[in-house]
């Protein structure tokens, strides 16, 4: 019996020692972990005023974005296609969005302003793309649409556009509160090989340049998605943008509509309450 245990122990020790030599369990990693406590968020303050930030933004981009907008937004196509999709029957129950939400789903006017929001069935946060897929599965008996697929983006875009011009008013009261806290913690969490957090760039260093990219202040981060992005040559969602920044951070990229990204979306949208929704957006 005793020998069995010691053999087992040796078998455990050998790979552990190997990991050690490879530097996977290094005491340095532990030092790093110690500075990444998740339960204590030290809020950061921007190192320049918002006015100063705007001045830099204008100096840096001039009227490039305005000129871009004048030439038309390629994402406009998604509005028409989304409208058509809202009236298109799909799935085993012979229904379309319009079957429940009126012609062209117009009863959903103004309904996007409080997304993302707490949902009791999910025991978590509901986002617009997720709600669309849940409607398809539960109400229409249709396949969910793959996130970032053209049809998923088009439907989200169209439904959201029915709230254009209205202020974001996300609630974090009651059951939403813990998810807001988690989202905030995710925003402040140091992660990835480069040990950045979202906040260190978009709060503390907003307005500074990372090489030739002006780091944006998070004040208007949530009002314009889905957006056409020049760099993608394509329209994408807010969560695609999250994943882009996570990749630049050399961090693990949580899946679309994972709990982490939904909580992050709740936090970011909440801090943009009052911004007027305007889709489709356009960005460099």
């Amino acid at each position, binding site marked *: 019996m005793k020998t069995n245990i010691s053999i*087992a122990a040796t078998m455990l020790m050998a790979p552990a020692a190997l990991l050690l030599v490879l530097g996977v369990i290094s005491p340095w990693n532990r030092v790093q972990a110690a500075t990444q406590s998740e339960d204590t968020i030290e809020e950061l303050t921007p190192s320049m005023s918002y006015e100063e930030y705007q001045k830099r933004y204008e100096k840096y981009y001039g009227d490039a974005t305005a000129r871009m907008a004048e030439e038309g937004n390629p994402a406009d196509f998604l509005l028409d296609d989304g409208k058509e999709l809202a009236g298109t029957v799909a799935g085993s129950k012979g229904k379309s969005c319009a079957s429940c939400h009126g012609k062209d789903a117009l009863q959903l006017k103004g309904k996007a302003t409080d997304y993302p929001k707490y949902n009791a069935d999910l025991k978590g946060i509901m986002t617009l793309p997720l709600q669309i897929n849940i409607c398809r599965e539960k109400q229409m008996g249709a396949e969910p649409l793959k996130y970032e697929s053209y049809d998923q983006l088009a439907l989200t875009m169209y439904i959201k556009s029915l709230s254009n011009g209205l202020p974001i008013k996300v609630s974090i009261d009651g059951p939403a509160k813990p998810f807001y806290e988690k989202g905030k913690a995710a925003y402040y969490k140091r992660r990835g090989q480069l040990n950045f957090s979202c906040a260190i760039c978009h709060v503390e260093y907003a307005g500074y340049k*990372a090489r030739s990219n002006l780091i944006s202040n998070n004040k208007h981060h949530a009002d314009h998605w889905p957006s056409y992005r020049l760099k993608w040559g394509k329209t994408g969602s807010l969560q695609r943008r999250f994943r882009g920044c996570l990749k630049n951070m050399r961090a693990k990229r949580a899946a679309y509509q994972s709990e982490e990204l939904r909580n992050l979306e709740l936090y970011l949208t909440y801090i943009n309450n009052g911004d007027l929704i305007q889709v489709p957006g356009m960005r460099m």
Partner: protein
Amino acid sequence: MGIFDPIDLKGKLTLWAGAVAFLMITVIPASSSAGNVEQGEKIATTRKLGNCVACHYLPNVESPGDIGPNLVEAMQEYTMADRDDVAQWIRDAREFNPGTIMPPFGTNKILTPEQIDDLVAYLYTLKK
């Protein structure tokens, strides 16, 4: 509690880790070379390597970032006796500023100790 208790095992591993780290820390600096200036410049300006220019001004680079201090100016404050401080900024700047944005290039194995030596050698060429 037997000596094969998993917690004991963990304790032992920590000791081992400590011992190995101690060896690594004491041996590596002794073997550090003078560093290759040309390599250092390449590491500082290449996106996939150090990419220091994402945040710092360095000469002969188009549109460097402005998140961190201008490294030509910063280097004027260092003497040859400060070589290890300069290296430590790169290895892990949290030693000087726990809330720094600067990535811990050594600790997180973004760069090797040799590459960090190359960077230090390059940075000292910026001293006027």
